């Protein structure tokens, strides 16, 4: 359910008026999400859901409780507020309690296209049909997913803070498979406006990769020079990002902990080619002007030329350590170089080109060792050309190691990972060293 700024403010203020708590913060978000799925060259399921939810956090001194509800009549709001208050009364005192923030200055960030939140079902069906027709014409089997959504988020608190932001999102991804199921290609991306997502171009790319990836040959597992496409890079960044909390680092339970105590801020841990920041106002991946805790979001660097310049500090931990808190990042941006993926392939004497990674999980958080697989387009590159498809691999490697060994990269682009499918990432394709540990027959 999409609410205007005034409608959202009305509900936020109504909830705040109802509370008897000493402090109260409220968040309200919702919208309309619609989608269509297709597989085996026909539409399968689709949906259109409208919803909005209000969350209330009530505090008495250092005791807090939370409740949320998705109905906004007077009785439902009262029930929600009372439940948060009742929970707070029974909660033990929290020694780390932080008072709610006073009003903050939030900038306007353009991240909403009216059309995205109200796309007619015929438009979505048309996108699916064009992808299917394209696949049929090339005699491959396609499966895919197209979503269009538009929504809002609002926050408010008992110190008169208020923020409102609208965000739309379109996503498209497609997997094409050859009829003998021996080749599979994928392409996908996200954007905020209908023109940001080229569904037909992505479908075409998936189909081309399906043909290219057929009849894969075996390469022996081991260490290889590897070109990781942006989708693969995005996932590795996400997992490294999960590990960048300042508190676990200071507590000695993170890769970013320093031997003997403290953390690795100021240490060079990645290749000097790696510079990593977040910027909610970057038009390539815009985000909200505020974080859920009310802080104004801002441009923040985390890695500069391979040196860790910051970690993720909550308001409490920042205060305790004498640091600036870091509002929740709305996106991840990695500085690229110049040139495109074909340029990088052309510049590579021998290596493996990886379209995307799959089923990535932590193996050892101490070293951020991850395992996962390659999927939907893995190729041998020789003398600047893609020579043939290779069988998929299972890999065991750490993004720290992978990002330490980068020797070339492309310009940065918007990317959609397999695990980071909904997070906004802008990054280049990179050339680095990567360790494959076993072969997989999966196509």
């Amino acid at each position, binding site marked *: 359910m999409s609410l205007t700024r005034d409608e959202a403010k009305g509900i936020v203020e109504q909830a705040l008026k109802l509370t008897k708590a000493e402090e109260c913060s409220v968040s309200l978000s919702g919208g309309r999400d619609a989608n269509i799925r297709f597989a*085996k060259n026909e539409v399968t399921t689709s949906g259109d859901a409208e919803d909005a939810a209000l969350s209330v956090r009530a505090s008495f001194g250092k005791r807090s409780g939370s409740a949320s509800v998705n109905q906004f009549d007077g009785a439902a709001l009262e029930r929600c507020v009372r439940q948060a208050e009742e929970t707070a009364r029974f909660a033990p005192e929290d020694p780390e309690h932080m008072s709610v923030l006073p009003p903050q200055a939030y900038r306007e960030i353009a991240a909403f296209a009216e059309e995205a939140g109200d796309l007619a079902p015929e438009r979505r069906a048309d996108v699916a049909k064009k992808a299917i027709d394209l696949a049929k014409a090339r005699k491959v089997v396609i499966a895919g997913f197209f979503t269009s959504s538009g929504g809002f988020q609002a926050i408010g608190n008992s110190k008169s803070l208020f923020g409102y932001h609208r965000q739309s999102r379109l996503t498209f991804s497609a997997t094409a498979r050859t009829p003998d199921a021996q080749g599979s290609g994928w392409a996908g991306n996200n954007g905020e406006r209908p023109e940001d997502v080229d569904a037909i171009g992505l479908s075409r790319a998936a189909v081309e990769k399906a043909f290219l990836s057929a009849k894969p040959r075996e390469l022996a597992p081991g260490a290889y020079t590897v070109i990781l496409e942006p989708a693969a890079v995005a996932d590795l960044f996400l997992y490294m990002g999960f590990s960048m909390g300042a508190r676990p680092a200071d507590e000695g339970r993170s890769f970013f902990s320093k*031997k003997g105590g403290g953390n690795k801020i100021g240490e060079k841990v990645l290749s000097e080619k790696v510079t990593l920041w977040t910027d909610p106002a970057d038009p390539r991946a815009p985000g909200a002007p505020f974080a859920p805790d009310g802080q104004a979001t801002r441009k923040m660097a985390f890695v500069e030329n391979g040196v860790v310049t910051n970690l993720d500090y909550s308001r409490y931990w920042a205060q305790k350590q004498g640091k600036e808190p870091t509002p929740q990042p709305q996106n991840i941006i990695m500085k690229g170089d110049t040139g495109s993926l074909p340029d990088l392939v052309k510049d590579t004497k021998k290596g493996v080109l990886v379209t995307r990674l799959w089923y990535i999980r932590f193996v050892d958080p101490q070293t951020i060792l991850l395992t996962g697989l390659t999927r939907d387009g893995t190729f041998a590159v020789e003398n600047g050309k893609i020579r043939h498809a290779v069988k998929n691999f299972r890999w065991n490697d750490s993004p720290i190691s992978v990002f330490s060994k980068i020797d070339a990269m492309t310009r940065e682009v918007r990317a959609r990972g397999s695990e980071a499918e909904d997070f906004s990432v802008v990054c280049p394709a990179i050339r680095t060293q990567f360790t494959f540990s076993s072969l997989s027959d999966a196509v």
Partner: protein
Amino acid sequence: MRELARRALDAARSKGAGYADVRIARFLRQSINTREQRVMNISNSESFGVGVRALVDGTWGFAAVSRVEPEGVDKAAARAVAIAKANRVAQARPVVLAKVAAYKDAWQTPVVKDPFKIPVERKVDLLLAINREALKVKGAAFCNSSMFFVKEEKLFASTEGSEIEQEIIRVLPSFTVTAVDKAAGKFRTRSSLAEPTGTGYEYIERWPWMEEAGKAAEQAVAKLTAKSVSPGKYDLILAPSNLWLTIHESVGHPTELDRALGYEANYAGTSFLTTEKLGKLRFGSPIVNFVADRTQPEALATCGYDDDGVPTGEWDLVKDGVFVDYQTTREQAGWIGRDLSYGCAYADSWSSVPFQRMPNVSLRRGKEKLTLEELIADTKQGIFIEGNSSYSIDQQRYNFQFSGELFWEIQDGKVAGMLEDVAYQAITTDFWNACDRICSEGYALGGSFFDGKGEPGQSNAVSHGCAPARFRQINVLNTARTV
């Protein structure tokens, strides 16, 4: 509610739906998170809404709204039909639903104690006591603990005459102890071996939390200096707390019919268990039998009816080592020539479209009388693994890699000490064909609260039962690295 449900069905029919169903559902969730002697968060959420699914000329449409009132259900029904009509241009073969009788019934998880009626203070006291007990152990630096409760109240009604009310309850308790050696720059964790279950609060009351908290803390500390495994081939004995996840990934997912036929190709992937292998493929050794059900007491996927309105039951997936069947919904049954659905439709919210989700999939107990102790005594050189941590499998479910919480070296039939840095990697059918003994004793359920599948992603809760079992000569990796 029933009147609104009937109104939604009438509205869908009047707009042109040949079949329609409606779910009016309320999802209640409560979570409590603590660390050391601090409560980090206590939250309660309530989500209420209506979802209408309509079939027009064999094409699906689905729409949902949070306004459960006449205007809201009319809107959802009209949108569902409009989507179905729009999508007909891209439908090659009309959807045909397997037959099901009309049921007017009610079902609820047979709980002793509704977790939502247990005072929050009692839950907080228990979690803080767990943390306190763990932190008594020298070297244990941190302890996080949590409880998560879910209650689904839903009314299903269809144009075929069913009206089914269900109340489903699940609980998920957990804790993790962390031991830190700052001087060496090393840390290790040990999480509880308690499992999520389809029970009430009674499961939490019967688990030996204090005993486990102290033991877990000692084991987290011991992990800091445990012997690093030498990579190679080992006989593995897997406890139910580890093996359930291997069953989930390597048996549960590949026997989903939608995956096998390519319907999940764009996300979760397909399956190596393609239909021509049905009844033919030797999936595992002859002692390996997998059963699917949605009826097993205390299991997470257990319910009375699925979200197609089909009564739940039990059936074989792998019999005497041979792959014999799939998981199906009403839409899927006909794809492999079956008349009836196995009742595997589920939607994780009123706003989500129902589709095929995993039932409980369990390894039957061994027929020979055998205990874990006897199995260890029968093993010359191997590793006994408890609990689960890292897990990963490819998109057709061939190549997997799993780790665990606790690794015990077995030498000459005895537990010789703790190992670290262990992960096992295998190809699914090689692994199950290497299963040479399954205990008759020690059967237990493990499970996942958040099994992801579909686009948009949906979460399913599912359990897997098994007794300890042995697997011969499995590839073990050493996961220690220097970066």
